[in-house]
């Protein structure tokens, strides 16, 4: 499964430019599901037909990134954020554009307080010596993402974009495993989650499911000096109770716990104080859709190197395989 995660995590796909990720997933699932379709928002919807309940399992394809807003005379790029970018941790990071152009993020060194530096005072250096040279490689409006290898070490994975390619990988693996059920399963790979849970909204409207789950990353509380949270890496995938965007529907939450208990799969209860998931926009679609979530505890979310535990990932696949039979 590591290879699958690596393939997906290394594919370029900031919010609004998820096509390459969608194409990769289409290649992996073609012939393995009954139908694959796309909507105007770019959501990729893979259907395993059935006669029972319609269940959405959603993972977002987009990753955070930057967008070029201006190119100056000397060829330096000014930029804004696509999704939540903590300014401090991006200094010195490499970013890569869709065409492979690599740049380094730095800041105007004459400012006093580096910690509170705003993105407006930062720039990207792509090694161009003039505007004309830069414009051959990059245009205003182009997006770039972090550079960050995908590696496995001590049973843990370190990579860029695990938020939420790890969710995509789990769903692809699940679809390939094809759990036996009468329910109709919609593996939905959504767009533009990082900028406001946008794609999931139209995907859910087009499906009108009986139930939905968002498969995403969540914070943890087992790092030196971090905010307290009853979630640790390696202790199992989480069953979402709430995050900033949704309170999980009791029936969905209970079905997940029942599935985990039945198959003796370790799980943790997730109360996430910051951040939302696609469940947040799905559950208030149309007349309301019972929704919840399964998350992978993740360190350094939105950094160029995020970390998850492989056991949590594998257990998430097992948990979902049992859940979809509900």
């Amino acid at each position, binding site marked *: 499964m590591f290879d699958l995660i690596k393939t997906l995590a290394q594919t370029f796909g900031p919010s*609004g430019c998820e096509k390459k990720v969608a194409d990769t997933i289409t290649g992996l699932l073609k012939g393995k599901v009954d139908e694959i379709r796309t909507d*105007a928002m770019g959501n990729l919807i893979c259907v395993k037909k059935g006669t029972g309940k319609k269940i959405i399992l959603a993972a977002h394809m987009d990753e955070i990134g930057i*967008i070029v*807003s*201006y190119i100056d005379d000397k060829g330096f790029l000014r930029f*804004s954020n696509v999704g939540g970018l903590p300014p401090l941790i991006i200094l010195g990071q490499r970013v890569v554009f869709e065409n492979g152009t690599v740049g380094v993020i730095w800041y105007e060194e004459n400012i006093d307080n580096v910690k509170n530096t705003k993105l407006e005072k930062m720039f990207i250096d792509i090694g161009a010596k003039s505007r004309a040279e830069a414009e051959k490689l990059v245009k205003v409006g182009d997006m770039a993402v972090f550079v960050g290898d995908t590696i496995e070490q001590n049973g843990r994975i370190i990579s860029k974009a695990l938020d939420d390619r790890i969710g995509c990988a789990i769903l692809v693996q699940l679809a390939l495993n094809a759990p036996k059920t009468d329910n109709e399963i919609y593996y939905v790979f959504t767009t*533009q989650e990082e900028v406001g849970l946008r794609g999931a909204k*139209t995907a859910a409207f087009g499906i009108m499911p009986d139930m939905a789950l968002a498969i995403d990353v969540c914070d943890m509380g087992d790092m030196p000096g971090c905010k307290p949270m009853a979630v640790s890496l390696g202790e199992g995938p989480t069953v979402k109770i709430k995050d900033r965007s949704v309170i999980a529907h009791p029936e969905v939450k209970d079905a997940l716990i029942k599935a985990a208990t039945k198959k003796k799969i370790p799980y943790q209860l997730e109360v996430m104080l910051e951040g939302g998931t696609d469940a947040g926009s799905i559950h208030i679609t149309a007349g309301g859709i019972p929704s919840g979530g399964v998350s992978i505890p993740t360190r350094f979310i939105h950094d160029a190197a995020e970390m998850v535990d492989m056991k949590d990932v594998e257990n998430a696949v097992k948990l979902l395989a049992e859940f979809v039979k509900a």
Partner: protein
Amino acid sequence: MEALELLKKLTTLDGVSGEEKPVRDFILSHIKDYVDDYKIDNMGNLIAFKKGTGNSGLRIMLDAHMDEVGLMVTHINSDGLLKFQTIGGIEARVLVGKRVRVGEKGIPGVIGFKPIHLQESSERNGSVNKKKLTIDIGAKDREQAEEKVSVGDYVTFAYDPVDFGDNKLMAKALDNRVGCAALMELLKGRYEWDVYGCFTVQEEVGLKGAKTASYQVMPHMALILEGTTCYDVPDTQEQGMSTRCGKGPALTVMDRSVIADRDLVRFIASTAEQHNIPYQYKQTISGGTNAGRIQVNGTGVKVAVMAVPCRYIHTPVSVMDKSDFNHMIALARKVLETLPKSDAAKRCDQLVQPPAISLFADKGGKTYV
């Protein structure tokens, strides 16, 4: 009436969010002669229908919001001065000393401020407290004020349009009467696709009208016509200028509310290049437009935003270059004419299709006109 004359007339009308009727009545009185059908929905959106010449079944929504930012009377003091709240994003500093109209009767007033002679030295620096500002309508006490205005009355800025300088126009509410005037002009044409011209309400208070308008239209694609921020004055560094006056309509790649459809933005940019129409990209990602609401409607909509750069928007008077307005109309028209034959349109057919609608008689619904 010429588009520019329409625009000027529109900027003299008052339509603060929630009270767009004067603007809507004016628009309707003009377009009803050349659209095929129209309706006014429960929120107050005016949705006009122009049947297409083709039979692809694809629907395009053109959106322009009618509302402007303004104020509302919240209390009448015993001395006859009016307390107020802002509606939409207005900063206190731009209100000081400005002329306003209050209520449906347009009672003249001024937002007064203590003259410099009477200010303590500490009052001369720092920001203005919105809560301390009042509107003076010249009434001697509450009783006299209540004869003319009441709590809940809308207040708008009282500035007439003026042509000036190098092909410039200054006026109130250019955001978004430029979009309204452009849309009125575009509806005169007939295109291959069914066109739904939506003059929407309550954009400035949270993109509200567009939500119900797009739900009724269920478009495949949408083009949002706007007036956007512009601050191309010398004390801004180049990278901080969101748009530039006189450099053509601005296309949005991304803002706080939306990432525009890349296919559609590319198509619009290449159409502009082909026909030698100037255009620019909006350089900052601040602000939001109805595109954010319309894009996530139904099964999803391919959206793009085209805007006239307007200096000093959300203040009593804003400034635009007339060429940008004319170029926006020209570009939007070319896009409407050529879009159906484009690759972007072909790809539209392969997507999840929005549900059928029966908004107008032509589609099996009621007759409104």
